[in-house]
């Protein structure tokens, strides 16, 4: 195994990353809502004075009778959504992740999940995507919270095309309960192909490899791909598994991937408590597993900062994935890539 110098690593990773074009998630959400409105006449959209901020002004202009602005009142919005769903409507709640999951969580739980009605919570600005907003608008507990609610589906798509596919899948899914869709905000690197299928409950293998597995979702998928492609150049086979469906969780795929490698990294733009890392550990704790290391937001209120720089500052980046991979593989001992390479 050749551990490249830091400078070489940084430069090579930057080149790999730059090969992926960017598109804003908010822009994609607005485009998808507009396209779906014409295709699917049955859904309505609710927002809490976030029509512009969640990118649905074009939807509102073309379909004014299907957009309901509840003002800055997320609890009422979630309850109204449940009431609509109880009367056969399909509401999509377009808000910010922080307020959807922290302020209106009781309505999401009691009114939507317990009643068993389908409400789609499209929660933008999640993670550190609104990093400059500071910890009131950064959202790193939402997956943990929503995952713990019975009857709640939790989806974390990554780039623009996957956001589009995820929304389409959620809209047609025959699920008697709410669906939480965790969304970013600004530009994210695009790795996936437009029009690809999105299967709720399924993991998506993106790279094969037998040395280390990198499990990721959301904005960290592209970082995992960049890291894996860099590692390949250094002689390390890194398997990448995209896990947008945190609940239901593809336990089988995770366990199969775990059996094929010597070490596992889980990378997510979320607290290390309760999110994807926890879901992976929960499912691997019941079976033989190689060592698992989680990369996420430590149990802290992060500093403010632009999304991509803030993620990098906190180690949510390909550079850190690569560094952690080298460390883990050395720790994993003889018979691993470190020895073989």
């Amino acid at each position: 195994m050749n551990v490249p110098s830091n400078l070489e690593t940084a430069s090579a990773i930057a080149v790999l990353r730059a090969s992926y074009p960017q598109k804003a998630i908010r822009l994609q959400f607005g485009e998808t809502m507009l396209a779906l409105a014409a295709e699917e006449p049955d859904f309505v959209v609710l927002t809490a004075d976030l029509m512009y901020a969640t990118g649905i002004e074009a939807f509102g202009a073309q379909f004014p009778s299907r957009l309901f602005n509840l003002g800055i009142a997320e609890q009422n919005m979630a309850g109204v959504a449940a009431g609509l769903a109880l009367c056969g409507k399909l509401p999509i709640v377009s808000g910010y992740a922080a307020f959807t999951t922290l302020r209106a969580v009781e309505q999401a739980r009691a009114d939507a999940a317990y009643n068993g009605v389908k409400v789609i919570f499209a929660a933008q600005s999640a993670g550190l995507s609104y990093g400059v907003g500071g910890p009131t608008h950064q959202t790193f507990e939402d997956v943990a919270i929503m995952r713990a609610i019975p009857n709640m589906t939790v989806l974390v798509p990554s780039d623009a095309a996957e956001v589009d596919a995820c929304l389409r899948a959620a809209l047609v899914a025959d699920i008697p309960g709410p669906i939480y869709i965790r969304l970013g905000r600004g530009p994210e690197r695009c790795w996936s192909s437009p029009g690809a299928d999105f299967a709720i409950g399924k993991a998506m293998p993106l790279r094969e490899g037998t040395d280390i597995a990198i499990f990721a979702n959301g904005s960290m998928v592209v970082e995992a791909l960049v890291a894996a492609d860099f590692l390949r150049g250094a002689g390390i086979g890194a398997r990448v598994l995209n896990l947008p469906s945190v609940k239901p969780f593809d336990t089988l795929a995770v366990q199969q991937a775990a059996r094929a490698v010597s070490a596992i990294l889980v990378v997510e733009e979320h607290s290390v408590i309760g999110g994807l890392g926890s879901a992976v550990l929960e499912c691997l704790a019941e079976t033989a597993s190689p060592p698992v290391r989680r990369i996420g937001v430590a149990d802290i209120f992060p500093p403010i900062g632009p999304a991509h720089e803030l993620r990098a500052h906190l180690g949510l980046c390909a550079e850190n994935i690569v560094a952690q991979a080298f460390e883990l593989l050395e720790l994993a001992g003889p018979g691993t890539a470190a020895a073989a390479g």
Partner: protein
Amino acid sequence: MGRPSATLNDLAEMARINRRDVARMFMAAGNGHFGSCYSCTEIVTALYFALMRVDAARPDWPDRDRFILGKGHAAPTLYSALIRRGFMPEDWMDEFEVKVGARLMTHPSRRYQPGVDTSQGALGHGLSIGVGMALAGKIDARDYAVYVLMGDAEIHEGSVWEAAMSAAKFRLGNLTAIIDRNGFCVDGRVDDVMPVEPLADKWQAFGWDVTRLDGHDLTALLTALAPRRDATKGRPRMIIADTVKGKGVSFMEDVRSWHSDAISAEQYARVMEELGEGAS
């Protein structure tokens, strides 16, 4: 199907039976929210036995009128009405809270109880759900009416006022909310714990039509709660019902502790004696 034609005497009798049923359920459990149930007996009776369009054979009938018990802890009053309207079997009353898997519990559950339009329990949720239901009726041009019954301390919850604003904004003429103004919450007089008056002024200021009446006066209730089925006309309607906590049982009336209390066999016998012989 539809609403039965009921005379005032019939309704008074159904109210009496409802109070006996409630006592029967609470006796099965050994305790219960007597005060909270007995203050809204006439309101629920008027709705289910004279006003609402419901059909026990079709609990999910899309055109049925909806009822939301925001003050979910008064569920036995609703259970009695649903049982006497044929939505649920009478013997479910005797398993109220008594075993794992009991169909009837402290708070209404859509999951286990046919005829319950939404699960409730956490206070301050009902009006928002009612706004959603009324809005759905308006979008789909259906002519059902939506009723939400709240406690007078339930409106301490801020989300109630969020919902109040939205009902006025969307001009939900098919929505009726009722406040059961029995004056007590768990810790004492509502207006000591957190004052709510002037109630009528507040709801008027929020854009609602407001009527204040005696919540035990069936004649007044029948008029004020008459279904509003045209969602395109008028404003949301608030009925402030002045009531007596524990109404109908002498030793429970206007007594704080009977918001929720244990009941002895001797007290139960007195309750049933005061409520008269009958169905339960």
